Structures are given as C-alpha cells and as structure tokens.
C-alpha cells in the first residue's frame, strides 16, 4: 500500500469520525437546550403561574392561540387561492416572474419590518390602538408566502393523469381543481399550515407594535364581544407568550418576571414540539387516507 493511499484512508476515517461528532453535537445541543428550558419551567412550576389573570400566563396563552387562529383565517384562503393561481393559471411570462419575486421578497422580509408596516397601516392609519387584529394581520403577512408556495408545490406534485382523467370525464378546470386536485393536496397544505402556525406562535418582533404589550381580560363576561376586556374581542390589546418573554427582559416590573419568562419559554417549546410532531403525523396519516397509497 502506497503512502498516499494510506493517507487517503486515514483522512477518510478522521473525517468520518469528525462528521459523526458534529452530528452528535447538534443532537446534544438540542437535547440540552430543550431539557434546560423544560427543566427550568418544571422546577419553578407553580399552579398560580398558569392562571388566567394578571399574575399568570393563561391570558397570554389564550391570546397567542387566538391571534394565530385569526391570522390563519385570513392567510389560508388567500394563500391557497394564490397557490392555485400560480400552479394552474399563471403562464410563464414576465408578470409571473415578478409575482414570484414578490412572494420570495415577502417570505424573506425581516419580521420587524412587517411589524412596522402593520403598525403604520393597521394601527396608525385607522387611528386605532394596539390590537389583536392588527397583530393577526401582521402574522398573516408572514405566513402568506409559506402557504402559497406549499399549495403551489403540492398542486404541481399531483400526477398528471388525475387531471387528464378528470378532463376526460368532462369536468371543467375549476371542478378538476376543487374536486380532484385539491383533495389530493390536503395533507401537504395542512402540513404547511401547521408550520405557519408554529411560526406564528413564536412571533414577537412583528407583534411589538401591532398586538401591543398588555392584556386585560375579564373572563366572566366573555360573550360581550364589544367590551374591551372581552377575551373574544379581536380589537383589544393582546400580549402573546413570546412578547411576554421580551417584556420581562426590557421592562420587568413584576417581581416574578424571570419566573414568568421561564414558564412562557417552556410552554412555547412544548407547543413547538407538539406542532412539529403533529405536522409529521397528520401529514403522514392524511397522505395515506387521501391518496390511497399504502406504505
């Protein structure tokens, strides 16, 4: 065996070990990171901190879920329709190229920029105050490009013979899209929506100046939609969990601010886990059900 040959084999071994080490390092880092946050949350756990009042983080939790729900209500229909347009109707020309550039620009916009835009348009321009709806609109701007591209990719991945079969039976283009192609895309679109929701839960920079940094909810009269303390009123300020972590760093007035932030971080991490595992499972199960494939 020549020396060069031996060196090559030695380098190969060393690099293999190094690459395994890096991969292991990342897994360890993630494990340490999540265990630290969850552990801290568990160690400081105290039932009062989960309460739905000014002491606990219950209200913030509700605001987070409600805000993301509102955001998806806006962005899913528009995003799916735009995705259908991109996949089925848009011709390959300059206009479509420009639309694609716009989508890419939207998806890479810094979220603080979206937050400022939302502040100007949804708060200042309507002479309003910080409110949940403005926050939801800002988050929907962030999730629109993701939902659009997911829908487009999903539609493009549908086998061509589905479409041809449907046309052959005399269906129109609209009927083909709505009855044949979209149902086949549902698993992938849902996965995309879950990912978008996950991003929305953790969003803070876009909400700083839109959703506001305070929350005041009166649960006893939740049905009075117009009341500014009604939980379901979307036009009230609504601090989310992520915003609360930020607030406890900058304007910590409450004595237990650090504890509250630890707890919020733990809850957010748990939600991330539930959502990413959920996206995988739902995607997998629906995939089998909707496309009839067995694997």
């Amino acid at each position, binding site marked *: 065996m020549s020396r060069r040959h031996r060196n090559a084999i030695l*380098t190969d071994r060393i690099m293999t070990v190094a690459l395994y080490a890096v991969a292991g390092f990342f897994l360890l880092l993630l494990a340490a990171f999540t265990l630290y946050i969850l552990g801290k949350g568990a160690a400081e756990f105290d039932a009062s901190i989960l309460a739905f009042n000014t002491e606990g983080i219950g209200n913030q939790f509700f605001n987070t879920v409600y805000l993301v729900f509102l955001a998806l209500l806006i962005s899913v229909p528009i995003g799916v329709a*735009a995705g259908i347009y991109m996949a089925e109707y848009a011709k390959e020309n300059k206009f479509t190229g420009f639309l694609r550039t716009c989508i890419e620009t939207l998806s*890479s916009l*810094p979220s603080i920029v979206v937050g400022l835009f939302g502040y100007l348009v949804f708060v200042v321009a309507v002479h309003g105050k910080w409110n949940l709806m403005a926050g939801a609109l800002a988050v929907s701007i962030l999730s629109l490009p993701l939902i659009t591209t997911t829908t487009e990719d999903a539609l493009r991945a549908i086998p061509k013979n589905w479409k041809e079969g449907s046309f052959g039976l005399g269906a129109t283009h609209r009927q083909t899209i709505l009855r044949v192609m979209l149902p086949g895309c549902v698993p992938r679109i849902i996965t995309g929506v879950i990912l978008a929701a996950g991003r929305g839960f953790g969003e803070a920079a876009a909400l700083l100046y839109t959703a506001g940094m305070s929350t005041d909810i009166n649960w006893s009269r939740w049905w009075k939609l117009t009341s500014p303390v009604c939980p379901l009123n979307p036009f009230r300020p609504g601090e989310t969990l992520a915003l609360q972590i930020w607030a406890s760093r900058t304007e910590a007035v409450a004595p237990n601010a650090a504890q509250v932030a630890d707890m919020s971080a733990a809850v957010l991490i748990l939600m991330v*886990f539930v*959502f990413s595992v959920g996206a995988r499972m739902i995607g997998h199960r629906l995939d089998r059900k909707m496309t009839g494939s067995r694997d």
Partner: protein
Amino acid sequence: MKKKETAWRILVMACGLFLILLTLSIGAFLCYRGLGTFTHYGHSVWEFLFSADWKPADDFQGGGQVGAAIFIVGSLSTCFLALLIATPFSLAAAIFMAAISPRLSEKLLQPAVEIFVGIPSVVYGWVGLTVLVPFIQRLFHLPYGYSVLSGAIVLAVMIFPTITSVSADSIRNVPKQYREAAYGLGSTRWQVIRRVLLPAARPGVLTGIILGLSRAFGEALAVAMVIGKRLAFPDGILSPTNNLTSAIASDMGGAAEGGEFNTALWTMALLLLLISFAFILVVRKITSKGVREK
C-alpha cells in the same frame, strides 16, 4: 357554467395580484416613511450610512444627526461572525445527512433540525440572556457579558438549520452517477465528498449560506437581548454594541410619530428591506447560474 369558470379564475387571480399589491405597498410605505430623513429633514445618504454621530432630534424641527454607521457595523459584525461560526458546523451536518448516514439522519437529525427552526427567536434570546451572557462574562472576566460574540452565537444557532437543510438538499441532488463514478475510480468516501459532491453542490450551499445571512440580518429580538445596546463601535468581539434591528425594536415605541428620530428609524427599516431584497437577487443569480451549468 362558463360564467362560474370566469368568476373562479378572476378570484384566484385576484389573490395572486393581492400578493404583488402587498409587497409593493410594503415597499412603498417604507420608502414613503424612510426617505423622509433625506427629503424632509435634509440629511445626506452618505451621512446616514457612514457617519457615527447618532443624535436625532425627537421632534419635528430636525437638526439632529442621523449617522447610523454604528448600527450598520453592529449588524454586519454580528452577522458575519455568526456565519463564520455556523457555516463549518452546518456544512458538516449537511454532509452527514446527505452522504454519511441518510437513515440515521432521517430519524434523528432531520426532526432535530426542524425543531431548531421552530423554536421561537425570543426563546433563543432568553436562553442567550440567562445562560450565554453570564457564561461569557465569567469565561473572559468581563464587566458585562453582553457582546458581539454573544449575539453572533445566538444568531449562529438560529441560522444553522437554514444552511444545513438547504445544503443537504443540494448535496442529495448531485446526480448519482457522479458519486458512483468517483467510487469506481477507487476514491475513499471523504474524497468523493470533498472532490465531487461539494464542488457539484456549490450553488446550493452558497444559496443556503446567503439565506442564513439574510435571516441573521433580519433577526431582531434575540440579538437585541444579548448585544448590550451600547452606542459605540465594538472594540472587539467581546465588546457590546448595537445593531439596526435592536435599535428599531427598542426605540420605535418611544419616538414621536413623524419626528426626526422616528423617521431615522424608518430609514433603518428601509435599509433592512433593501438588504433582504439584495440577498434575494444574489440567490437568484447563483441558482440560475447553477441551472445553466447543468
């Protein structure tokens, strides 16, 4: 029937148009507010980009100084340091996923990367603030742990999933024949990776790095929590400074709407928009070149 088709077509097209309208109006609003520094308050672009005198007046008369060089240098130094830290690790992880053990990666590393992406940036910032900052303070015997290095490490953790997944995809997409031919000539696995896979996947790897950089530039709160917010150029990687996004995030709420201070912050946001747009153009150039080469 025909009517329904047309209505439907118009509906989906309108949604597509809406995305264009949204992008253009974001750009237009930012220009409208951000250009005020130059048009209304009469500062030069040169002053904004290269002067370090940051004393904008918080009123409507103006007359302050709006040199944002400290913030720009702060953003650049944290981002490039983050890239320097993250790129080797991310590339190694990408190579591992695509070429060493795809099976192990699919079960463990891929989900881990996805979870890393999903963790909210404030949580990274919070852990950076409560763990990393004190750690750096003790390690280097500093008065404070807030520093460019802390910001860069937090950013590095945040951008590594982007670089890893984009690079891994492009390594996977290298045609199989390349790999087989190299093995057939008697290469070791590392030689195949080093001499065949990485060169062939270069456009994709570069795209991943630029996407990571663009994410780092736009990240606001996580960096703001650990950078220290000191209005001075950093003396080194262990010294605190400030950056564009932190300045916007922390000062926008207190500045009078439409005043010089407020307008200068909008100009910073406009700069961020332009930077992220520039990154997109660079990525397009790289990918279109890669396609042509194939």
